[in-house]
């Protein structure tokens, strides 16, 4: 048998990333993103913080926040002593992996960028999080169910109502279906 090359499908099972628009709202699947899950024991929390500062250029973000690194990566709080490190081709330096449990989740999570003046109107039909800029400013993260599915929402630009949303791959199509319905209702569609 000739050597087989395994083709790649996006998180939504597509050959090309999804991109859809409504008046005042758009959603765009982000592909090529590496997603690493970090978890650290209480005793190693400070050490990990130092290692991140040294090797990623930023300290770990506090609860419900994310930070950008100077290497184009983003570190997002994901729970008690847990973080996601995401980025285009991001990798975790060995010094960090020695202190924390590191698991590749790049194929387990789908990332989608949503934006537009109607984003909040769409999101209020889907989840319980208050995305008002005053309560969910840029740099904020929330883990929340969206129509019964796990999701992580990060506020990229609160004033522009732009967010990155991570959700699980297996239920991604249901997830997008709910977004379409919510966007249809909130924005209208021809």
């Amino acid at each position: 048998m000739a050597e087989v090359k395994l083709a790649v499908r996006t998180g939504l099972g597509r050959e090309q990333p999804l991109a859809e628009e409504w008046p005042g709202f758009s959603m765009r699947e982000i592909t090529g993103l590496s997603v690493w899950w970090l978890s650290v024991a209480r005793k190693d929390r400070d050490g990990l913080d130092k290692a991140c500062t040294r090797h990623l250029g930023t300290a770990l973000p506090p609860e419900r926040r994310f930070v950008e690194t100077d290497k184009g990566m983003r570190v997002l709080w994901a729970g008690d002593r847990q973080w996601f490190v995401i980025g285009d081709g991001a990798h975790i330096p060995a010094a960090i992996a020695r202190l924390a449990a590191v698991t590749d989740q790049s194929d387990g999570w789908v990332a989608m960028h949503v934006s537009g003046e109607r984003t909040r109107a769409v999101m209020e039909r889907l989840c319980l999080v208050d995305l008002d800029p005053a309560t969910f400013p840029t740099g904020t993260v929330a883990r929340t169910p969206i129509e019964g599915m796990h999701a992580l929402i990060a506020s990229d630009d609160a004033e522009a109502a732009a967010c990155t949303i991570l959700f699980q791959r297996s239920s991604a199509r249901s997830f997008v279906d709910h977004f379409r319905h919510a966007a249809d209702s909130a924005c209208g569609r021809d």
Partner: protein
Amino acid sequence: MSGGQPNRLAEGGLVQRDREIAFHFDGRRYHGHAGDTLASALIANGVRLVGRSFKYHRPRGVFTAGSEEPNALVELGRGAGRDPNSRATVTELHDGLVASSQNRFPSLGFDVLAFNDLLAPFLAAGFYYKTFMWPAAFWEKLYEPVIRRAAGLGALSGKADPDAYEKATAHCDVLIIGAGPAGLQAALTAARGGARVILADEDFVPGGRLNGERMEIARTPAHEWAAKAATELASMKNVRLLTRTTVFGAYDGGTYAGLERVADHLPAVPPHQPRQRLWRFVARRAILCAGATERPVAFADNDRPGVMLASAVRTYVNRFAALPGRSTIVFTCNDDGWRTAGDLIAAGGAVEAILDTRGAEDIAHLRDIAGDAPVFTRARPIGTAGHKGLSAVTFLNANDRPVTLSADCLAISGGWNPNVHLTCHRRGRPVWNDRIAAFVPGSDAPPGMVVAGAAAGAFSTHGALAQGTERALEVLGDLGSKQPASGIPDAEDAPYAIQPVWHITQSKGRAWLDLQNDVTVKDVEVSHAEGFRSVEHMKRYTTLGMATDQGKTASVPAIAVMANLTGRSIAETGTTIFRPPYTPVAIAAFAGGLRGRAFRPIRLTPAHDWSKEQGAVFTEAGLWLRPQWYPRRGEKSWRESVDREVRQTRRSVGVNDVSTLGKIDVKGADAAAFLDRLYTNTMSTLTVGKVRYGLMLREDGFVLDDGTVARLGDSHYLVTTTTANAGLVMQHVDYCHQVHWPELDVHMVSVSDQYAQFAIAGPNARKVLRKLVDARFDIANEAFPYMACGEITVCGGVAARLFRISFSGELAYEVAVPARHGDAMIRAIMEAGREFDIVPYGLEALNVMRIEKGHPVGSELNGQTTAGDLGLARMISAKKDCIGKVMAGRPALTDADRMTLAGFKPVAEGEELTAGAHFVGIGREAKTAHDEGYMTSVCFSPSLGHFIGLGFIRRGHQRHGDKVRAVDAVRGRDIEVEICSPHFVDPQGERLRG
């Protein structure tokens, strides 16, 4: 009067006279105007009879002008989406509206069930409980169906609701409930202070009572002031003004529920819009400005069409320019009723008389309002006349002499009840206020809620405006917001003068308290006589306060009647507990968009599209869709497909998508110790590169789940679970770490979605896999034996994991690749297996093969079985402790007489086994006392050519060769079966090690 609408006033009102709207009621076409409700349009058209009462089928007319309406319940629309029990008083008129009366046969005008009214002496409260007791069997088949047919409200279509519904969440600093004077003023104040405000009102026009009254605010007509306030609010970015939205419930944590009627007022639901939207409001503070509801007074025959609340008459005249009657009598015990007389006179209506229960000295200041209308002081109505509509009212004058006057409308004002309901939804209790003779909110309203305006007992417009301002300023202070300059606009500030009257005791005949449930004063007296004296007992005994209006006009008068009977005060008697919803909410609104396929998320494997291309038949496994079998052309039944898949897998090779299995990455210095505590068997002794079967118990000693544990590194394990239990096991593992052993350095995360995983099984499995695994990895039997695992690469460098495990009993491997490659991987496997006639096999074939091997799954791990029952008692290590170990040792769980796992095969060739059958000894009667066990899984075994089954039977492992009967009472089957080993195929496991 307007030509086509005989009772439409020639001028005035807030309806849009230039927009005529056609609608139908009981098949007849009428016209109204934009801005009408169905009730106001019917009144304008002179329609007085709109419904029949619940029990006695008495003629009933519009009684109120709001959501408290007990009488004017209609069915809206036709077909599947018809909406019964809709209140005509809050139904916004729209083109093409079709409404029908309900609870009548054959017509509203001639209802044969009105015969019930003649039986009224026998149908008092409680008669159901006493009359239909014997014979007991008759209740379900005769009595209840007949009673249900004779008494009731409207009925649903019985078909799926064709409309869409939606749920949404909105956050705010201040939720203001009600857009009357208090609500508007509170909203203006809070919004000007910079707070995020949501103002919700059930009406389609903000203003509340201001739209129904003839008064001024800031020297402009009150309704204009309301419109201007609403316009200002709508223009503010920090305000969300929601009309047609009823806040119907108050819950924990500042959460409130509201129902927005998005499209009920439109001829058709606009594209992509829901009919209704259920709001979850999350508010830091709430100001309840829900207003008040006028109450009636009980006297004989006070239920005829034409008898209305006085404030409702004002609303119809002032807001809708619709005259409820040609000649009206006003009956009141307070000053407010006089407004109705004044407004009727101003509108050109005829006021036949004003009856006031108070003395002349109490009403001297009101005399001018009456104009030429006769005024009767210390007057008490004792009866009415008219069949399908009021024609006369008889009352006692100050000298106790009966006087009868003709009238087709009687406007009653018994005083006002603040709408306290939402203050009570978290068990708050209202308190009685003697000054206004009404219950007002107690001090135990939901945290964060304050009350303003009529809802707090401030009945003057000035009082409402002032309280709206004050409460909003208080709230702003609490929130740390700026305090805006606030002024209170000029408005009437008349004191509220009332001498409450609940029941005219001199009247003979049925005096109605609850019009919706046909409950009279006599029913309350019967309830009292029978000992049901608590208001909660009274409610259940009489049904007072139930159904769509929840007694909004009935409860307080009934409480007063009961208080009088018991000799207690009204305050001592108290109210029933008010619970959500404040007004009826369709179940569909609670479901929102979560119906049909959207009811719950659907999880798809990375190879789903490929399976779909192959024509796979899918089944739900938890939230997953899994291929059940892959039919081929010419196959006439699922069995043919499944048999083929099994035979071909056992003969050559098959592939199964096992991506759905739960996969948990467990890492950390204490990972091994942690797993030892979770599993019955020891995992710390597992060497890197090996897999071990594992069993988890619940705390109570029963089996929780089984699966495998693969050691991928010194401190790195991969735990697999069954598909259905993946979430449960993850939760259990997390709980054990967080609660039992937080000191352990262990980290776990689900990687179920990260990998696409395929089981390649069959004698040629290795040959297929060899074509995919990169050459540098040796997967020969010696290098990669049964129960080996490792990190490899496939197809030229794609990172993968390989496990030599087998659920089918064949030589098998499970290969996992990152999910992005899942679709390509299954195609590559099929291509690699082409020369071996590889087949994809589905869940059914997998099930057949695991039954042939005696492997338990969910049917056997059913929460009632122990490790011993499954024949796995030896897996509970004696050398260590684990979750559930102690409890698993309980005598009842180790009893030698317990049912244990066994195999079963039919004695007679060709007999079909059924899961769920119970085992009974041969010759014994099939009854519970003789039950020896049950069949959990069955299949036709293509390998053996007959049916086989797994099940639990007493001392099953000791009874191989015994014969019993498998009795399936549900399917009517009773066949003889032989107990055997559960390992039907390759019991020594030679194939999987090959």
